[in-house]
Structures are given as C-alpha cells and as structure tokens.
C-alpha cells in the first residue's frame, strides 16, 4: 500500500492549495495538467471537491502540494470554506474568453483575503489562452471537424467550440491581459495566463507559489506533529505515478510574476 516514509520525507513540506473559480473555466484541467501532465477532453464535474497531490522539488526542498480542486457551480460556493480553511495557497482561475469569469474570480479573491488564512498566497490564472492565440503548432485548418480538441477542455460548450473555429485568435479574448494583470498587481496576487491544453504557464504557477510560500514557517509549525509526513496511505495518490516535477527546471522560463 502506502510507501513508507523515506529519508527525503523529513525535508518535504506539505502545502495545502485550493483551486477556485467559476464553473467550467478549467480548474480541474489545470490540476490534471500539473499533476499528471495530461489533458482530458471529458472530465466529470467536480462534486464538492477533488483531492490530488503532487511532489515538487524547489532547490533543496521537496514540496508536497495537496491540491483541493473545488466545484465551480455557484451553489457549491457555500461549501468552499471547508476546503480553503488552513490553505497556504490558492489558485483562482478565470477564463480569458469569458469576462464574467474574471468578475467571479475577483469575488473569490475578496473572500479569500477576508476569510482565509491571512498569509495565504493567491495566484490568479487566466486559463484557455490557447483559444486566443494564433495556434503556432499544427495549424488547424479553419472548420476542421475536431471540435473536441479545439477547446481547452470539455467543459466548453459546443457553442464555444464553434466560436473557436469561426473566430480567429484575439477576438475571442474578453479579458485583456493588461486589465487582469493590473488587477492582480493591485490586489497583490501572482498573475499568469495559462493553457491547460498546451500546458503553457501551468508549472510556472506552482513554481512561483512555491517560492513565495514561507516554507520555514510551515516546517516549524508542522514539526511538532511527528511522523506526519509518513502517515500511511497519505502518499498513494494517483498523482505519484507520474513522479515529481522539478520546479527548478522551469525557473529559467518563468513568466511575469507580480511579486
């Protein structure tokens, strides 16, 4: 069953991270890309919240992200505090092709800043940028019959898919990068534009969060609970199979970070 605690576990730090955002902006897809480097066109909607883990290396430290991927539908909102309590980091996701999703993201940020852990590190991620970039990779002929692959994830409605093919690049964009970035700056958030489909910007989010998190504090506070990192069963998540991500590799190409 669970692999027992190894030596490295002593230095691994658990970071609780929560994903929030409007329904169907691609929260689960962002996590899936990060955790198993996959992209699934049809993901079941998250009920309550899904839990995944991923280990990362940052310099000489090993971080273990415990990721709570929450349901996006408005009525699940009242359950969210259960998941973001005690979280050290949050990724608030919006969809660059949907202006209203940024508004929802802002309300999440407000809520986190008032209700969550006061030291929480918040990142704002504008997802689905693959939809607004002139696709550099295999140029898909307009009107090619593969709608499912066009959209960032399956949650895009058929209507949106159609739009992708019709509209070229930037005109699908409803949230200008400047606007979101300015907001992030003002609110003190990390800022990224990402695509879970192509993988762009995904690892960077988690790298920058890792850098910003007061790791020593966490270590100090968790050291008390001896044996905690080695809790049986705690590390057999499906995430482990893919192995850890070396965050340092990505340091070079880190994206605009507002900190």
């Amino acid at each position, binding site marked *: 069953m669970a692999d027992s605690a190894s030596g490295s576990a002593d230095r691994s730090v658990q970071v609780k991270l929560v994903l929030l955002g409007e329904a169907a902006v691609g929260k689960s897809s962002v996590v899936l890309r990060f955790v198993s480097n996959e992209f699934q066109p049809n993901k079941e909607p998250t009920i309550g919240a899904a839990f995944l883990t991923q280990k990362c290396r940052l310099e000489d430290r090993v971080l273990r992200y415990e990721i709570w991927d929450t349901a996006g539908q408005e*009525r699940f909102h009242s359950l969210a505090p259960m998941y973001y309590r005690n979280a050290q980091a949050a990724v608030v996701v919006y969809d660059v092709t949907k202006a209203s999703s940024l508004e929802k993201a802002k309300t999440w940020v407000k809520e986190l800043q008032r209700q969550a852990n006061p030291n929480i590190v918040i990142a704002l991620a504008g997802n689905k940028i693959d939809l607004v970039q002139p696709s550099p990779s295999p140029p898909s002929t307009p009107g090619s019959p593969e709608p499912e692959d066009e959209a960032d994830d399956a949650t895009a409605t058929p209507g949106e898919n159609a739009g992708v093919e019709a509209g070229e690049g930037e005109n699908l964009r409803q949230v200008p990068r400047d606007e979101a970035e300015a907001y992030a700056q003002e609110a003190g958030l990390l800022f990224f534009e990402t695509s879970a489909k192509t993988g762009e910007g995904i690892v960077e989010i988690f790298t920058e969060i890792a850098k910003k998190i007061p790791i020593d504090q966490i270590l100090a506070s968790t050291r008390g609970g001896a044996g905690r990192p080695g809790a049986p069963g705690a590390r057999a998540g499906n995430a482990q199979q893919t192995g850890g991500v070396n965050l340092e590799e990505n340091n070079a190409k880190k994206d605009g970070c507002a900190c």
Partner: protein
Amino acid sequence: MAMISTQLRNFREPTKDQLTQLFFSLPLDAQVGVGEKVNEQERMDISAVLTLGQDAEEDPYPGKLYLLPPYLTFSSLDRKSVRFTLPLCTIRRVERLNARAGIYALSLSLWHGMKIVVQLTSLRPTADLFCALLRDALKAELQRGQMKAVKGFVKTCYSEVLVASSGDDSKDSAASKADGDVSDSSESMYLGGLGLKFKFPGDPKKLREASKSKLWTTYLKCHGRNLTLLRYPQCTRLVQVGLPNRLRGEMWETLSGSIYLRFAHPGMYERILKDNEGRTSTSTEEIEKDLHRSLPEYSAYQSEEGIGALRRVLQAYSFRNTETGYCQAMNILAAAILIYMSEEQAFWLLEVICDRLLPGYYSPSMHGTLLDQRVFESLVHRCLPVIYDHFTQVDVQLSVASLPWFLSLFINSMPMVFAFRIIDCFFCMGPKVLFQVASSLITTYPPLTHIQTAILKINGEKLLQIQDDGGFIHLMREYFASLGDSAHPESSDPRARAITRFQELLLVSFREFAVITDDTILNERRKFRSEIVTSIESFSKRSAIRNLKTLERFTKEQAGLIYDALFKAICVEPPPVAPLPPVALLTTKDTGEERPETRIGLKTFRVFLSEIATWARTEKIVSNGFQQRVDRTIAEHELIDRLFYFWDTSYRGALSLQDLVSGLNGVMFNDLMENIEWFFNLHDKNKDGYLTKDEVLTLSESLLFIFRFEIGDAYLGAVSRFMSNAFEYGDALLPRPDGSDLDDEPPPVESNQPYMNLATFRMVVLADEILESFFETDFSSTFRLEPVPIMEIPNSNTGLLGGLWQNIASDDNRKIFQKVTDEIGKTIGKHQVFHRPAIGKFTHLEEPKARESLLTGTMRRSASKSSLTATESSSGVAAPSALQTSSSSTLTVDQQSLASDISSSEFSPMPSIFQAAANAAAMMERTPFAIDDAKDDDEESDDGSEIADDGVMDEVDAFLEAHDSGLTEAERELAKDLINAEPVK
C-alpha cells in the same frame, strides 16, 4: 450580487399525515394537487391483521391499514417487516368474509391475482365505517376510469414479462381474467434503460444475474409486482443481495414510489418537454456543460443517444422545478439511473430523489446536504466516539470525504457495480442507508449513513492514524478500490474467503448500524436544522455585503443592518419569482452574462422601507391593560413609490441590495442643503431642474404624509406656510415677458409646466424654521438602521411540548390572543391606541397661541422669530436671515393638562416617553390631514381640537367607570392573572 433566498424560512416540519405518506412512498399532498383536483376523500387508519393467499404463503402480520385515497396501504407493527402501497384501482374485488362471530375480515383480490385477507381488529362500528369509506373511495376510482388505466400501465413493466416468461404452469398464472393480458404483455414493449442496448455495467456471471432473476420471478409471482407489490421480509433480503439488471429500473421505481407518480401523470414528461421546447435558462446552460462529463466512460454517454436522453431528463426536471433547476451531481445520478430505466421513469425517479429522499440536497443553498453532513457528524460522534475524537484532534472534517458520497450516492466514489447495490438498498430502505454505510466506512473504513457509518467503522484502525484531510481521502479511495477483494483473505474457510469487502461493508452497515433509523435521522435533522439555516443565512449575508460594489459611506455593520431589513422584507413579501425568459428570446449566450441577483419590487420595497424609515410605517401603540404592544403596519403612499423609482437608477423596475445601499447613502448622510436638494430632486420627475405646480403640491403632500402622526399643529402649519410661500415666491420669480411691468400679473403657468427651480425651493424651505430644522437633522434621522428583531427560524424543537408550544405561539394564535385581550381591555376601559410619530420631536402638546392667517397673499415681514418652546433643536438654529417668514407661531405647552391626563388614565407600566407621546396623541387624535384641511386651518382648530379632545377623555373616563363595576369577582381574578401572565413571545 447574489441571490437572497428566504426559502429556508418556509420550512415546515412534515405533519403526521405527511410522515405517513412519506413512509409509504406516496406523493405528498402538495404535489398531487398540481393541476388536478384531489378528490376530498376521507382518510382513515385501522388496526388489522394481514394474511396473504389461501395457502397462507406468509405468516399473518398484525399492523395498521390506512385508507389514503387513492391508495390503500398497510404496515406491520414494527414498521419494517411487511408493508404495501396499493393504488385502489388495482383492487378488483372486496368481500366481507363469513367467519366466526366477532371477527370482521375483508378479502381483497388484487390485479395480479393475489388474494389478501385483512382482519379488522377494531370495534365493530369503526370497522363498518372503514368499509364504508373504502367502498366510496373505490367507487370514486372507478368513476375516474383508473381501473382501465392499469391494464395499459402494467405493460410498460418488465416484471410482467419476467413472470409471464417463467411459464404458465404456476397455479395462479396472473389470475383468472388476466390470462389474456399476460400473453399480450409478453409481446408488448416494456420500458428499459440504456443498458439494454449498451450493456449493463459488471459481469453478469459474477453478478449471478440468472439466479437472482429466478428468485425474483418466484417472489413477484406470489407477492404481486409493480403497482401491487407486497413487501415481505423476503423482498428486503432479495434487494440486499442486489437487484438483477433488467429488473433493477422497475424495482427502483416501485420501491421508491416514483411509479405512483408516473402512473398518476401519464404523458406529463413528454408534455413538459414539448411545452418548453427551445427554452433556455441558466439551468439548461449548466446542463449543457456537464452532459459530456457524466459517466463518460460508459459507452452510451459517448453517443448522441445517451447524451440526448440525459439532456431531456435533466431539462425536464429543471423546467418542472425551476427553484432547484440543475445542480451538479444530478447529472451523475440521472446518467446512472438512465442505464436501468427509460427517460420517463428516470424523470420521475429523479423527482422523488430530489424532493423526497434527499430533500434540499440540490437546492440553490444545498441546505439539505449541509444539514445531513452535520447529522452524519453527530452520528459518528455518537456511534464512533473514538474516531470522532481523533478527527477533532487532528482537525479533519468528515465532510471532505463524505459530502460526495451523499450527493452522488457513492456513484463516483466506488466502483459502479457496488454503488448500484447501495442504491438498491437506498430505494428500498430509505436515506438512512446512506448514513449506515458511511458510518461503517469509517468504522473499519469510514461509514456512510448506514453505509456511510459502516464505511467509517470498517476502516477504524487506519483512520486513527490519519493526520490530515488528505490522508483521510486517500485511505477512503484505497478502500473503495479494494471493495471487490476478499474481506478475509487469510481465512482457511473458503466460504469466509469468498466474502468480499463489499459484503462485509453491507453487513456491518445493516447489522451494527441498525441503530440508525429513520426516526434517528429525522430527530437529528430537527436538532441541527436551525443551526444550519443560521449559518447559511449569515454566510450569504456576508457574501452579499462583500460583493457590494461599494459600501458608500456605510460601515460593514450598517450595511449588514440594511441587509437584515431587506431580508426581513423578502420574508414578509417575497418578490415574484423571475419568470423564465420567453422561448427563443435572448438565446445568444453572452447577453445574459450577469449573474442572477435578488431584486425586489415595489411591494417588498414598502416593507423594507418601513423597517428603516419611521414615516414609512404606521405604528400604533396599543395598551389594553394586559399588555402593551406596538402594532406596526406598512404605510402606503405615493412618496414611497416615488422613492422606489427614484432609487431605481437603472430603470429595471426592481431594486437590488446595491441600489438600496446607494439610495440610503444619498439621504442618510445629508446636511441641510443636500437634504433640500435631495427632496427637490425626488419630486422633480423629469429631472429638468424645475418643479411644476403639480409637483409642488405633490411635494407638500409628501411632507404632510411624513408629518401625519406628529403631535401638535406645528408641522401642519409649516406645510401650509410652505405652500403659500412657494406659490408666492414662485409667481414672483417667474421670468416675465420683456417689457412688461413688474406689477403686472405674471403670465399664467400651466400646472404641468416648469415652475420652480431649486434655488427658489431652497429659499422657501429656509423661510420656515420648522422645515429648516426638519431638513437639517430630522429628516435624515427618520432613516434609522436598527437591528431588526431576530426573526425566529421556524424552530423544530424536538418533543411534544416543543411542538405544542410552537402551535400556541404561532402568529395566528398570537393575533387571537391579542384580540381577546383587546376585547377585555375595551370592556374594562383600558384599551387605548396611539400612533407613534415619525419624528417625535414634539413630545408634548404644543399649540400655537395665536396664528395669523397665512394665506392673505401679502408677504408679511416680521422680526419676531417663531419660538418653539420645549424643542431643543430650534433653540440652536440661527434664524435664516432676511427670508424669515411671517409665521410667528408661539407654541406653548399645556403642561398642566398633560399631567392630569397622565394621572387620569391608569396605565400598565410603560416607558415614560411612550406614555407622554401616547397621551398627547390621544388628545390630538385626528385623521391624517389632506391638503384641503391645511388651507382653512386657523384659530378655530385650537379651540375645536381642545374641546374635542376633552370630550374624548371624558368619554374614556365614563367608559372606565361604567364598566369597571360590571366585572364579576371571578372575571377580575382572571384579568389579574392575565396581567401577571408572561407575555406571549
């Protein structure tokens, strides 16, 4: 932003009748009532002993027989061994049996040929009455033609095919007359799910489909099926080992009772779809997003056939239940049941799940989910204290894992084959199953309700080692993945080895957690309900305030008070439900981007304003010698409506919380000049900077309305002066045609033409001290943010007494009580009613000593300032310079008479301020004045009113004496007791 829902307040504990209906899986009254008229037939229950068949295949069971037209139901005494729910139309024949003396027995022949005997063990007259009622009910059903409907209906049921195909050799092959039908039905198409075409999940061999089918065939043959199923202990046992795939859908329908809905509403599913064709809503958009994400691994949901069915079922549900609409997790449920049943069957089953079995789970506030999570936590605390303590210690919340178990009935938590078996039990035994399993899960694993409790139990050991949420989730995930494994792999006994972990889970669930019963859950829900409602409401309050675009100049606390007032208003006067957008209108997606938001209409606004503005309510202080209370009613006046549209800056005909906050901000922080301007703008309908003559009149009426309960004539005088001055200045300042003489009469201005601008208005207002002081401070202070008295959450205290008290303390009864005490008060002459003034500055009676006519038409300049004795504010107000008006109203106080009044009317203890105000109000009681009154208001009124008031007091005195003596000693005693009695809260 956000919706404000008061729906949780409307919750009513199910009545005893409803509980009975719930128990027998019958549609609740309210639901039956939709569209068709329920025939008002009498219900009755009676003790009875049930025997099945001539050969007595089953033991006789004592229990209770219920006549609940159009159903006849029975439950054994323990309420679980035996029960049935028979639509009356499936009863073909009723005979009174000739038996030994003193025994009253009925023999019922049912549609499927079974014969049951019920022996009525009550007294003879009771039994006779029951029979009479039964006969009437049966007749009514016959007239409705329901008997004929049965024949067509049963053809849609797979069980008919199953039984028919098992050979006609059986002795009671579907009864005498039904023979023909049986052969028909084997040819007819029965309803089935996607599984028939896309295969059912699981290996049929491993599931032992064949032998299960055989057992069921036997059972259904003698115990009836679909509409006439009699549930004996054997039935429950068979369900617990798992239903055969082909029969599963129908059995779910039968066990959950959704079959009765389908039977009662033929064709409704198609009708709903047809009526709403092409309609889009938030729900349909959300459904669309999730269609491809519902059990995507099952092949049917990779095809248009499956997706289409799923879409139709979810949409039909959302059209029929607009309040609930669509909630994620419902897609998973619907997808799962569609494997086993047709769209129509799934539609009705979904309705039963969402409304009856898991009430409130999928509602916009998800209060049912939150409540049951709390209940589950409490059950774990009680049944598994060790685990509970450990979880508390390491700060792990059970719900992080258990919430999806409950919400999606384990379907995406454990392998589907196992989840379906839990669902079998869930439909058969009710929601407690979830709690039992969940508990056993955390026992050895974390348990579900039954199942949940069981799950927790089974995993107990390991659970005690987990340190955080993540560990908990992982442990559960692993356990679920291993459900097919042997529970005792080490055992030497091959039979023990063959027991899977899943079987062990069910065993623990139903054996060890049998203590979790329907009653337990009902009681626990009752216990935590108000806690959950409070927390949901305070959560939505916090987010509503957080989401305001601006708080303006209010603090968060003040905004909270505004929210409270709004919330109360919505409780009292719910805004109309936003209708679905008309078909084919606004289907382009991006136009409707705005998120739904609660907006209130004029009616609700009136209630809201009455909470905040003292002049927007009418408060009568009633004292009747037993109690003193304030009866508050909501005022109606054009001013209030005007304010509503004034604040409706986006012209939607409805106000949001933000509109209210901004609107109040515009008036509550104003100084003198701002208030004058605000009031001017409020009445300047076309916003051209001018009031018309009509608008000046309206404005005066608004002032009179605000002043309607003020004591004394000071305000009345002020308004009347205002009017005369307004027209005088107004005329004087009108632009004159060039060359005309100043003395000429100005050209007449139509009453709807621009007439007076702000500057002039200001001048007129400042010419009067009372108005000036009104606009300087008093007006703003008529808007008061005060804590709204805590509204009782429909409390559901357990126990008989709680319920009893609730009944007594209900609103209606309180009204009756008040009426009674009023009556007694009137009899003993202690009934008094006063209006509380909106401003309440003049708490004493003040009458101008002498008043000169204000409408002479000449402008009188007078150096004498009006002096308002006994009002603090006026003393500080500097006289507004040259524009000082003529009014030299000196007000004096008739202290003496006031004092004597107080002593003459004996009050029950009441705050002294009220007393004074009330006294004065009584003396001055007058009908709300209209403008006309103001015009001819002069000296007369002084004397007149005084005289009239004296008369009133005399009358009261006389009343008091005359009736005081009329009381008998006993009545007096009673009255005394009543006085000392605690007031009804």
